[in-house]
């Protein structure tokens, strides 16, 4: 019946119809070929499945501004000053009052640029004019120009300074560079607040770049996430408040068995390591009595992982790590 219809059509149509049918033919042949090769190998799995924990501390601090961003924001601020309605001072502040004096002092300390009048056009920064950059977020300027009644009540020592442990209303914000940064304490979680830190461990008795994410083979009928939770507890103890993000592995790595890394059983050719993502929110790692034979741990940024883990391992994991 089909042949009769086809014969009434031009040759081009025939070809088109035939082509449309082609993929289906290929599909059937491909699946049959796959089935014939895969069925025998599926019974003997040549891979050992292992699970690894990518435990990370998300950034605690906001990102450092790019120099271009910084200057662009300054430019925009000055444009805004030129466009905005000037402050109606005497509406808010009565002349000659302490509030008025404070306002004048603050204006002076802020740099003295006004976006109107004769010199409004001079809105650029001069060379060596670093007044606009305030590493202490304007803290010193604020303290210097603000009147508080409590200054008289402060218990100062003979030098006129606040004694240690004494309380002031204005607390100096802490520096973004912490003690751990200065000491290069890789075990501290206070370091590199603006970056994601990853938890890496070192096994006992191995030479060379052996820093890795904690890893262990799947045991029994557990799934990848359960395996990852168990691995972390065996490696670094239970005193970490962690959150495992989803059930899906974020990357994998094939580690072939060989003379340096002998296969635990006959017929196994390689270990497939699946990485599970986790976040730490509190607590710290403790390697005492760990079951995975680890001797040291570090919290590293992505670039430092490249330095400590070695080229091969870093290439396997680099694209699953965050650059910030």
């Amino acid at each position, binding site marked *: 019946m089909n042949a009769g219809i086809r014969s009434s059509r031009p040759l081009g149509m025939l070809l088109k119809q035939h082509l449309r049918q082609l993929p289906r033919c290929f599909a059937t042949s491909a699946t049959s070929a796959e089935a014939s090769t895969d069925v025998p190998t599926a019974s003997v*799995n040549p*891979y050992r*499945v292992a699970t690894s924990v990518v435990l990370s501390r998300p*950034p*605690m*601090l*906001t*990102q450092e501004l*790019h120099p*271009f*961003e910084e200057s*662009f924001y300054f430019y925009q601020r000055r*444009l805004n000053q*030129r*466009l905005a*309605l*000037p*402050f*109606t001072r005497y*509406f808010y502040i009565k002349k000659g009052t302490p509030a008025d004096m404070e306002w004048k002092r603050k204006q002076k300390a802020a740099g003295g640029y006004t*976006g*109107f*009048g004769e010199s*409004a056009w001079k809105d650029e920064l001069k060379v060596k004019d670093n007044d606009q950059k305030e590493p202490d*977020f304007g803290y010193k300027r604020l303290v210097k120009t603000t009147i508080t009644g409590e200054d008289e009540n402060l218990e100062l020592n003979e030098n006129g300074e606040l004694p240690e442990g004494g309380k002031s209303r204005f607390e100096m*914000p*802490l*520096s*973004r560079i*912490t003690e751990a940064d200065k000491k290069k304490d890789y075990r*501290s*979680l*206070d370091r590199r*607040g603006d970056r994601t830190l990853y938890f890496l461990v070192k096994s006992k008795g191995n030479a060379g770049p052996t820093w890795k994410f904690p890893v262990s083979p*799947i045991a029994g009928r557990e*799934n*990848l*996430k359960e395996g990852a939770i168990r691995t972390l507890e065996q490696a670094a103890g239970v*005193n*970490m*408040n962690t*959150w*495992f993000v*989803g*059930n*899906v*592995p*974020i*990357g*994998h790595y094939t580690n072939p068995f060989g003379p340096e890394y002998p296969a635990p059983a006959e017929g196994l050719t390689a270990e*497939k390591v*699946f990485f599970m993502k986790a*976040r730490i*929110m*509190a*607590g*710290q790692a403790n390697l005492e009595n760990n079951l995975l034979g680890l001797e040291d741990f570090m919290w590293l940024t992505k670039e430092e992982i490249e330095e400590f883990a070695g080229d091969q391992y870093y290439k396997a994991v680099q*694209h*699953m790590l965050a*650059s910030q």
Partner: protein
Amino acid sequence: MNRIASFFTRATARPVVAATPAKQTTTLVRSYAKKVVQQGDPRVRMIRYFLNHPAEHTPRPLKFGTLRALRHWTIHRAWQLFRKQQREAREKELERQYNKMRDAVEALKTVDERLYRIAISKKEVGTFPIELRIPTDTPPRNGWNAGWKRS
């Protein structure tokens, strides 16, 4: 105490001043020589004044010379370019992370069907933890809570 008292006396005095009829005086004194008496609540007067007399130079259109305009245009283009570079870098990073995830799941399927099924199921994914904190400009005063213990 004194302050409160003076506040009340002022408050009561004000309506008396406001209520003095102006017409009575006009019959006695010539109007052009009349001293203008400020009437009403001084706060309301202030608001009226500043609404009708905004600060000097109020309508200030931003006028650019040729070179200034050119410079502004250049800065604007540079900013757009910078934003674009940042956006593309971020998108590419996300794409790389997604690709790694997809490859891992594909590999898991060939290695272990059971683990694959559990991994892609949405069961027991868990909820977002409230303990995660957002980034701040300066670090917390007590540093990282390293002494946290599982109870």
